[in-house]
C-alpha cells in the first residue's frame, strides 16, 4: 500500500474479506544475533523464567531456557509497547526468520526464538485504528478465497475520476483469468 501511495494512485484495489473467512495467527521470529538472546533480555521488560502464553513476549534461548516478560499487559496499548521495546533489541540482528510458533527452534548458539502472545483479528484492527503499526513478520493471516492475478492497470488506479463503466468492464474481463485460492492450513498438534 505504501508503494501505491508512493506512485500516487487515486484508487487502491482491495479484496474485502468477511471476518469468518480470515484466520488470524502469529509468527514467531527465529533470530540470529551476535549477542544471542542477551540482545533482547537486556531490554527492561522484567524478564523471568517461564513460558506463559499470556506473556506479551517470550524468548527461547539456544540452550533451551525459556524467558517471559514479567506481568501480562492489562491493555492492548501496553502490550504493543512491550513488543515494540523487545523488537528494538533485534534491529541489528544478522538474520530474522519467521516461523510457525510451534515449529520455531533456535538454529545455533547465537540463535534464539522470540515469540509473542497470539494476535486476534480484533487486536490488530484496534491497533491499526489507533495508528499503532506493527513490524512485518509478526502477524500471520490466512484468507479463504483470495483473488489472485487480477492485474489492475495502473492507468485505472491513477485516474482522478473514477470510471464506473471502465471498472465494471475490467471486472467482466478479469473473470476469465483471475484465480480463487483457498490457502491451505496445516495444524500441528
Amino acid at each position: 500500500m505504501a508503494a501505491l501511495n508512493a506512485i500516487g494512485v487515486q484508487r487502491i484495489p482491495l479484496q474485502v474479506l468477511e471476518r469468518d473467512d480470515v484466520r488470524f495467527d502469529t509468527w514467531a521470529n527465529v533470530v540470529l544475533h551476535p549477542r544471542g538472546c542477551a540482545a533482547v533480555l537486556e531490554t527492561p521488560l522484567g524478564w523471568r523464567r517461564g513460558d506463559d502464553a499470556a506473556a506479551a513476549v517470550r524468548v527461547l534461548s539456544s540452550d533451551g531456557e525459556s524467558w517471559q516478560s514479567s506481568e501480562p499487559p492489562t491493555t492492548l496499548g501496553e502490550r504493543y509497547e512491550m513488543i515494540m521495546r523487545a523488537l528494538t533489541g533485534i534491529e541489528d540482528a544478522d538474520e530474522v526468520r519467521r516461523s510457525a510458533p510451534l515449529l520455531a527452534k533456535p538454529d545455533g548458539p547465537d540463535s534464539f526464538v522470540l515469540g509473542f502472545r497470539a494476535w486476534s483479528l480484533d487486536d490488530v484492527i484496534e491497533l491499526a485504528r489507533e495508528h499503532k503499526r506493527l513490524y512485518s513478520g509478526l502477524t500471520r493471516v490466512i484468507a479463504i478465497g483470495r483473488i489472485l492475478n487480477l492485474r489492475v492497470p495502473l492507468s485505472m488506479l491513477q485516474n482522478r475520476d473514477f470510471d464506473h463503466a471502465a471498472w465494471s468492464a475490467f471486472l467482466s474481463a478479469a473473470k476469465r483469468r483471475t484465480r480463487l485460492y483457498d490457502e491451505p492450513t496445516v495444524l500441528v498438534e
Partner: protein
Amino acid sequence: MSAKNPALDSLVLASPGEVIPHEIAIDRHVRRIVDAILEDGYVRHPILCVAVGAQYVVLRDTPLGCAERHRRSENSAPGFGA
C-alpha cells in the same frame, strides 16, 4: 485448491484515505514494489482487508506474487522485517 471464474463481488477500489495499514512499511520493500509495478504497468493482486465502518484495515499487503517478490529481491539482505 483453486477455481476459475470466481465471483469478484468482494473487490473494491478505495481511495488511499480510506485504507489503514496495520504494518510498518519497509523502505527497501516499498522501492522494490514501486519499481515492479511501474515496470509491469499493473497491480497483480488486490490487497486483503476487512471493512471497519467506512474504512478498510489492511491484513495482507501483497500486490506482487511471491515468486516475483523473491526474484526482485536479489539486492535485499535478509534481516529484520525481511
